[in-house]
């Protein structure tokens, strides 16, 4: 089978971010291409944002609405539940991923259904719903084109908005010829999309149950909004007898009018579009249809109690932080070995399992670009930094890294040691270059070591100052 990056990194997750990134970095041309593609999307985001004179004000308003949501999550959820039930929607509560999966399967099995169409939902990725349903003999068809591509390849998505951003069209052509019977060698995006349309239309037409995610749920009215460009969520839901919408409890917003703020920000931040093609508001099921909502906690209520990390719950899953991240762009989504990659994934994942995701907060240069583009103003890079402290305090940072940082602290806090280390370094680079130009030095990988200067800035300054003083005296 064709795969762009090899085997499923989530299931073979003994490797950390650096090792998985190393694998991705072996193909230099692909890395350059990946980097440029995502930067192109980041630039489209900028262009879209600049068209809105009140953009920064909007970000601030969105951030404040989300802060209000975090303070009143309990009240809003209860209000939402009451209104949704009045609207004829069945509301379920799941405290963790396992319970969420069981609730979904229970609805399926009671209806005697063993095939579902599913539109994009990061929550179901987080809960590993597909894998769970597969063990129960249920066929899940991901209907977003990008998600279908990675599903056929047996991979998880590598980006929350652009699931197959790491795949080249030739590879997709090959994959489709294996799975959908398209002619070999045809890799025209127009042609491949048309083939996928025909393939997925058959599944839309024959599926009695549709699962969707939720972008926003409104406490005031009990309605929820699902955004797509392809129309796959709508097509699935409107043709199915049963609709299950799965949402994290943080997706609540207080009032309908607040949708205006978030819908202005979401697509512009994500892809630079003014809005997604479809922003569908589901309030009541159609005649003869059953509608379920599963409200999922899975660590969220716990995180709410942490002043340092709670604001990550404000995320609206636009992916802007990934598109701008110099590390994500050059290491690929799979190197994060978590359902949500990039900077936001790196601050969400350790909250769920500190040990398993201890490497992720270190996969950052702390440049802060993620924080600058975040439409709800999450302090992502500050949280990355804070996670590093927490991880070290809890013993989740390796001996080598710890002693390296301690050594660095000793050098930088003493003038004498610092001076000695500087001259020793210059001497080594000059006379024994092989002592640093080797595979034990992580910095040397993909980089050339700098040429050693003859003297330090300190020495140079001293010398020049002396000359200058002499000159003035003369």
């Amino acid at each position, binding site marked *: 089978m064709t795969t762009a990056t090899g085997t499923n990194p989530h299931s073979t997750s003994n490797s950390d971010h650096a090792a998985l990134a190393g694998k991705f970095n072996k193909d230099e041309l692909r890395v350059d291409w990946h980097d440029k593609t995502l930067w192109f999307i980041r630039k489209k985001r900028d262009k879209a944002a600049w068209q809105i004179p009140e953009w920064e004000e909007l970000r601030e308003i969105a951030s*404040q609405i989300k802060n209000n949501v975090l303070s009143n999550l309990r009240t809003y959820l209860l209000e939402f539940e009451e209104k949704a039930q009045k609207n004829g929607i069945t509301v379920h509560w799941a405290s963790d991923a396992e319970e969420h999966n069981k609730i979904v399967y229970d609805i399926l099995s009671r209806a005697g259904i063993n095939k579902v169409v599913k539109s994009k939902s990061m929550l179901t990725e987080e809960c590993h719903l597909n894998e769970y349903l597969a063990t129960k003999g249920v066929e899940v068809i991901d209907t977003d084109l990008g998600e279908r591509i990675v599903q056929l390849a047996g991979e998880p998505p590598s980006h929350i908005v652009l699931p197959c951003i790491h795949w080249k069209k030739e590879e997709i052509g090959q994959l489709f010829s294996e799975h959908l019977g398209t002619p070999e060698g045809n890799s025209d995006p127009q042609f491949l999309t048309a083939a996928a349309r025909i393939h997925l239309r058959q599944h839309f037409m024959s599926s009695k149950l549709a699962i969707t995610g939720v972008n926003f749920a409104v406490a005031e009215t009990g309605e929820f909004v699902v955004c797509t460009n392809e129309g796959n969520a709508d097509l699935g839901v409107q043709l199915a007898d049963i609709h299950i919408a799965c949402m994290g409890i943080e997706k609540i917003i207080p009032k309908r*009018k607040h949708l205006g703020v978030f819908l202005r920000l979401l697509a512009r931040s994500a892809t630079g579009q003014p809005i997604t093609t479809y922003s569908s508001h589901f309030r009541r099921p159609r005649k003869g249809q059953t509608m379920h909502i599963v409200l999922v906690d899975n660590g969220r209520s716990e995180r709410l109690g942490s002043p340092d990390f709670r604001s990550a719950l404000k995320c609206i899953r636009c992916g802007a932080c990934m598109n701008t991240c110099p590390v994500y762009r050059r290491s690929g989504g799979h190197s994060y070995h978590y359902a949500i990659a990039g900077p936001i994934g790196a601050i969400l994942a350790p909250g769920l399992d500190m040990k398993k995701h201890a490497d992720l907060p270190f996969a950052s240069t702390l440049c802060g670009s993620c924080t600058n583009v975040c439409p709800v103003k999450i302090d992502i890079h500050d949280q990355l930094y804070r996670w590093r402290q927490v991880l070290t305090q809890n013993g989740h940072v390796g001996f080598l890294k710890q002693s390296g940082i301690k050594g660095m602290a000793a050098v930088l806090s003493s003038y004498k040691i610092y001076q000695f280390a500087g001259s020793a370094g210059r001497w080594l680079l000059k006379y024994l270059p092989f002592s640093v130009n080797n595979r034990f030095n992580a910095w040397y990988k993909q980089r050339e070591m700098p040429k050693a200067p003859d003297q330090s800035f300190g020495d140079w300054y001293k010398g020049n100052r002396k000359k200058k003083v002499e000159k003035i005296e003369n």
Partner: protein
Amino acid sequence: MNSRETILERLGKNSPQDSPLPALPVAGSGMPDPVEKFKTILESIGGTVVHVSTWQEIKVYLNQYFSTKARWINGVPELTRVDDAINFGVDPHQFENVLLTILRGHFGVAENGAVWITDDKMGDRALPFICEHLAVIINSKDIYHTMHEAYDHTDHSEYDFGTFIAGPSKTADIEQSLVLGAHGPKSMTVFLLSES
């Protein structure tokens, strides 16, 4: 305790101090002609905008651009051409072979080219999504500047299902190449009607 109670209790315990809701921006202040903006934006995302001043013009346009031999579903009483008796309440799967759906929208939004359509004007909720081509009619005076204005005008409206549609269904999942017609309509035509 069941999960609902456990979650609610933890939320009650862990919620931070109240943080007030902000005021929203003033809708559409000082913006230029919304009709021109709407047209420019919708066309830039793959939609077609047609100015008309009579219903007859819409009929002529549709007959010219869409095969009259194929199946059309018309949800607009003012347009008389109805090939297919509108037989709503039936199985939505039977709309799979619809070439053209014609619907009445409530209004358009200038900043993003979206049109607001609710289920009472859809006949069947599947119709705007399952057809090959979608045509929507709005009054040219019903175009708002921003989404804030849009929500202000629908705050008390009752609908069971409503959607903003901005252009044809699309995807760029294959190497960021934009392809129109992912799963839903391959084209969207919006008629801006200015009846004198």
